[in-house]
Structure formats: structure tokens, C-alpha cells
């Protein structure tokens, strides 16, 4: 479902070419770093972080299968 998150982020932003998702494996959790253009950060976070939280929920569902904890960070 990483691909699904990537697709959604690209549709949310104005500069889809700037979207890059990198997977950083760690001891206990995998971190997904979502890189977007500086002007697009707000569009991916949303009011009170609602959009970012929804993306996290989707990413978590993806990770459930592999029983891994995940973090999702949005980075300009």
C-alpha cells in the first residue's frame, strides 16, 4: 500500500514531480519519509493534521500484514 499512499500524495499536491517516498528501516519501526515541494506541505498535512493522519492510517494498514510498526513523516 506504499504505492497507494504515493498515488494519493501525488494527487493532493500541485507539484507531483517533487513527490518522493523513501523507506527507512529501523530497529522497531519502518519510517516512510514523504518528500514534497515546500509549497505543498500544507496540502499533505491538512487542517489539524487530518490528511497526514489519514495517510498514516492507510500506511499502517499496509504494514499490518508485515507486523511492522511504521512512522510516516512529511518532509519539505
Amino acid at each position, binding site marked *: *500500500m506504499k*504505492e*497507494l499512499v*504515493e*498515488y*494519493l500524495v501525488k*494527487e*493532493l499536491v500541485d507539484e507531483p514531480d517533487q513527490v518522493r517516498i523513501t523507506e527507512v528501516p529501523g530497529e522497531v519501526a519502518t519510517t516512510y519519509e514523504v518528500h514534497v515541494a515546500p509549497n505543498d506541505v500544507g496540502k499533505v498535512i*491538512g487542517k*489539524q493534521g*487530518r*490528511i497526514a*493522519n*489519514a*495517510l498514516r*492510517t*492507510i500506511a*499502517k*494498514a499496509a504494514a499490518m*500484514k508485515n507486523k511492522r510498526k511504521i512512522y510516516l513523516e512529511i518532509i519539505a
Partner: protein
Amino acid sequence: MTDNAPLQSVEATGRTIEEAKQRALQLLNATEEQVEWEILDEGNRGIFGVLGSTPARVRAVLKGAVRQAPSEESERKAMAVVNAALRASGLAVKAIKRDSYDCYVELELVGRDAQRFAGPQLDALQYILNIIINKRYDKTVRVLLDVGDYRKQRAEKLRRMALEVAKQVKERGEEAVLDPLNAIERRIIHHTLMDDPDVYTYSEGEEPERRVVISPRKQ
């Protein structure tokens, strides 16, 4: 669909079917002859009308009401966005139309991997897809996603939980705070206990940590 269009149908609850019907008529500002009834839940008066009681729920639809629905064009655009996202997931899942009414298109996710969407991720996906659809493609339409009868079962589970917790609240005389729920789910809890004379409900906290509190009414 405009906001001030007259109501065409309404759902109401009451301790009995009759009470629910009266309330629905009031809400619609209509008389018995002008509506058709759907009994959604016959309700259960429980023991002594208190323990384990569930409210009766009815739906009143004005006779001759035209069921509005999004245009075919809007539906097509909305479904295209949903299916493009699902294709991108690489999973064996796609969306098929189940129904459409008002500004909504109800879609069912089907396929070998559809069950992976049964959970909080269903609302999360629905939320983001609607933002994308409304911002980029069509302002007039909204999608509602479901997997099998996930929504129905989830609502049933929430209703049962609300009644169970309300019972404990009455026994202990102390309020109870539920786990965080989204707006639609919180509404189900409020609705279920609306007619209970011994408890009242309210929400507190900020999304996505907003929780329903079930509180005893002071004697």
C-alpha cells in the same frame, strides 16, 4: 442539491415505533398520509423498559419524492479517481457502484484483497479520495466506500457498545469516556442513546482523538 431544499426523507428514533413515527412527521412537517414508512429497527423495550432497551428507528419518505442523484458524468469521474487509486495500490481490488443518492455515490470494494480495507483505513481512504475528487475533478459528488457489509456491522457493533457502556454508567453513576471515534461513528453513539432518560452524551477533545462521553443524568 442545495442546502435549503425541503427535506424529502428523515430518520427518527423513539422508545416505540409510534413515538419514532411522530417525531419523523414533526421533522418532515408532514402528515401520516403524505409519507411512506421504512421500519429500520423495531426496538426492544428491555427488562422493565430500561435494561438492554434499544430505541425504535423509522425512516419516513415523502410520497412522490424524487430521489436525486449525482449526474452520470460526476459519477464516472468520481469512480475513475477511486479505481485509479486502487489500481495504484497494486492490490487485487476495485470499486463497483452499489447505489447513488443526493450527492453520494456508494461504492463497494470487491476483489481478493478487498478485506484489507475493512477497518479504520476505509474512512481514511474515503476522506482523502473525496478531497482529491472535490478539489481536482468534481465539486458536486462524494463517494462512500464499503467492503461487504462492513459499515452495517460496524454500526451494529457501536450501537451494542453504546448500550452496554450506558448500562454500566447507570449502575456506577459515573461517566464513561469511549475510545476515539470519527464523526460518523460518534453520531451513531449519540443517536443510540438519544432517547435514554438516564444518560446523556457529548463529545470532547480534538480530532482525531475526539471521544464520546456517556454521562449519568442527575436524579
